[in-house]
């Protein structure tokens, strides 16, 4: 079955099995997202991609497209809600953007720019989160993890391993590593694993590459995340 859905007044075709975000991306319509990447099982946890489908809030990354749906992706109300959700991610962890190696290349930051987020709005949790710098080439800064599960999925689905997991309940969620010591150095991770390169924030970093491109000349310093995401995700979608 194929058909069309209508996003903000624009008719968009879809194919059987596509989610709303997949149909939108293929048609060049950007829906903000963090836990979704083409080619991975949808997760539906960040809730940034929330759109109104026939009047009801749904996650565009998990909700199947169906003929005749009316989807609202851009309204002032939705932009505010998405900004608030992004602000929640910022206060939950400790995001010191000016000193972060990922600054300018970080999707969380890119989305925040896109949503015109100018402050954190909510009180900070000031969580005490540790770093795992045990591995010679790869670093985990838990302060910046947003539990998007992408590294978990990438390790399982692309690398055929099981390096990461997310444990804990509620606000006590934490990223854990599959090794007897719990440290990254004792896991079977490899620097060429997809899992190492997929993190949308600065939580998973490759050592000694941080400032090769100076801050100010990085991706989202110049381009809008909507533009970058649409270009990249349509490429990936075709492989």
């Amino acid at each position, binding site marked *: 079955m194929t058909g069309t859905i209508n996003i903000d007044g624009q008719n968009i075709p879809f194919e059987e099995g596509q989610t709303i975000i997949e149909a939108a991306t293929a048609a060049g319509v950007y829906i903000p997202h963090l836990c979704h990447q083409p080619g991975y099982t949808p997760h539906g946890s*960040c809730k940034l991609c929330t759109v109104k489908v026939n009047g009801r809030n749904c996650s565009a990354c998990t909700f199947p497209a169906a003929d005749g749906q009316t989807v609202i992706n851009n309204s002032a109300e939705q932009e505010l809600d998405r900004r608030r959700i992004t602000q929640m991610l910022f*206060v939950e962890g400790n995001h010191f953007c000016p000193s972060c190696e990922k600054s300018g290349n970080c999707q969380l930051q890119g989305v925040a720019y896109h949503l015109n987020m100018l402050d954190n709005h*909510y009180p900070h949790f000031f969580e005490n989160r540790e770093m795992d710098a045990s591995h010679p080439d790869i670093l985990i800064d838990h302060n910046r993890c947003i539990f998007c599960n992408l590294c978990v999925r990438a390790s399982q689905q692309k690398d055929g391993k099981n390096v990461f*997991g997310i444990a804990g309940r509620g606000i006590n969620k*934490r990223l*854990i*590593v599959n090794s*007897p010591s719990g440290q990254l150095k004792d896991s079977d991770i490899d620097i060429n694993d997809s899992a190492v390169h997929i993190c949308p924030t600065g939580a998973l970093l490759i050592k000694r590459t941080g400032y090769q491109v100076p801050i100010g000349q990085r991706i989202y310093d110049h381009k809008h995340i909507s533009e970058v995401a649409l270009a990249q995700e349509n490429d990936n979608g075709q492989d």
Partner: protein
Amino acid sequence: MKTFLTSILTEADYQPVRLLSLLRKIQSQYQHIPMEAIGILADALHIPRTQIIGVVEFYSFLHLTPQGRYDILISDSITDHMLDKENLLGYLSSVLKVNVGEVRADGLVSLNNTSCTGMCDQGPAGLVNGLPLTRLDRPRIDEIAALIEQQQAVSDWPGYLFAVSDNIHKAGLLLNTPIEKGTAIKSAFNRGLPATLQELDRSGLRGRGGAGFNTATKWRFCAEETAAQHYVVCNADEGEPGTFKDRVLLNSHADQVFEGMTLAAAIIGAKQGFLYLRGEYLHLYDKLQAVLQQRRADGLLGDNILELGLDFDIEICLGAGAYICGEESALIESLEGKPGIPRNRPPYPVTSGYLNQPTVVNNVETFLAAAKIAIQGGDWFAGFGTEKSAGSKILSICGDCAQPGIYEYPFGISIEQILADCGASDVLGVQIGGPSGTFISNKEFKRQLAFEDLATGGSFIVFNNSRNVLEIVQNFTHFFAHESCGFCTPCRVGTSLLKKQLDKIVDGHGSSGDVVELESLCQLVKSHSHCGLGQTAANPILTTLQRYPDLYAKRLKTIRYEPGFDLDGALEIARRMAHRNDAGAHLSQVED
């Protein structure tokens, strides 16, 4: 350890879906899940250790660090608080010489809070090594402390410490005349299964777990799915504070519940069923196993039931302290040995549930009612209640009333009548449907209990005029923050922010802007959360803000803005380091 693990692994047939029950056994043997056990389990079950740690950290009753050999948890439900729980907890802590949230240095005892234990009609309540302690008071606490110091095995403690009463005060059409064993199955086959499903449809029965989905429709959708297996699951998680009717149904009418499940199995074509029993109801486990065993002996479970060609059996799975596991897709994840994280929908469990096979999940009371309907017919049931809410509802009533316990009413009953029956006077308001439901004030007692007006899963908590609405809301809001599974941002972060924001106001640090902020946060959490927990977590705040805006307003400061932290206090360290304490080294909190 190796021998112990090998024996429980053999018992579990080395099935990863049994992980939760394996971990429960390890926890009770070693008072925690040792790292060594995690390694052994990972190898034996061929699953990553991250998956095991993920499960351990998700459930409140499992721990990576040792708990006391006597592990005491005290119920933190609002009704326990109303029965002086805080003072009793303090007393318990002092006689046992252990701080709340800690393990005593000698490792003998640990003490902590836990969410509602389902004993609100006989609180203050708690658990020791998983078994319920009811009607706690100082003499009982002295006795418990002495038993612990003498290191008496919990199995040798006097029975009255663990006594759990049914407290049925009013029986209606379901509780009045329980069915004879086997009659529902026989009636269904005599009439024919499709015709029986039609009767169920005619009865208008809607799910008794809260959401009220039409039961016949659910069973029909599931039956129509072609798949290798179908499953029936009875949801006995009963985590909503103030709900304990399923505990009573399983204690006294388990046969009828199991018969309802068997009926569902016949109709949808299932060979296997599960009773998901919340960990807090461990005390019912052996009794329920015996009921199942008897049913097998009676030919009511197993192969070729009553020689009707029906094969079906039921397994009991215990939870481990997580309210979210009552949500049906989280429950299914938990049955599969995983953390109870709600799945994305669609697909719904009727098409893809346990092991991705079509699965019917229903509440205990729903199965109980279905069994009776199979015998009496749909019209009988539809003859009671209101147009959109057929039949009766079993309520668990607790709080400020003379006779807390179980009451069964036809739908449509007024709140006024219920309050009169349970002996409530001088009432301030009633929490209907538990924290996720609605708080109604004493101006609304003409309202009806029905899906058309006030829907409920069964929780009915009465508050008299001596109670403080904001303290009640605080208790509920903390409950949700504690029980959020943490999967999605709006609920994981949002429920914790709600807690902070509400505490700020209740503690007297709020200004008018804070109430506006609180309300918009409520709306965000409600409209953007992934599942019913997040979608209802703000209800206590929203329903009371609507009814008692002045109670919130009274707590506010008159200034326009009050920061959430002490600005001048934060400079204290800097002042000490700079050896300064002059006026210039201080900042005023706000410019008035």
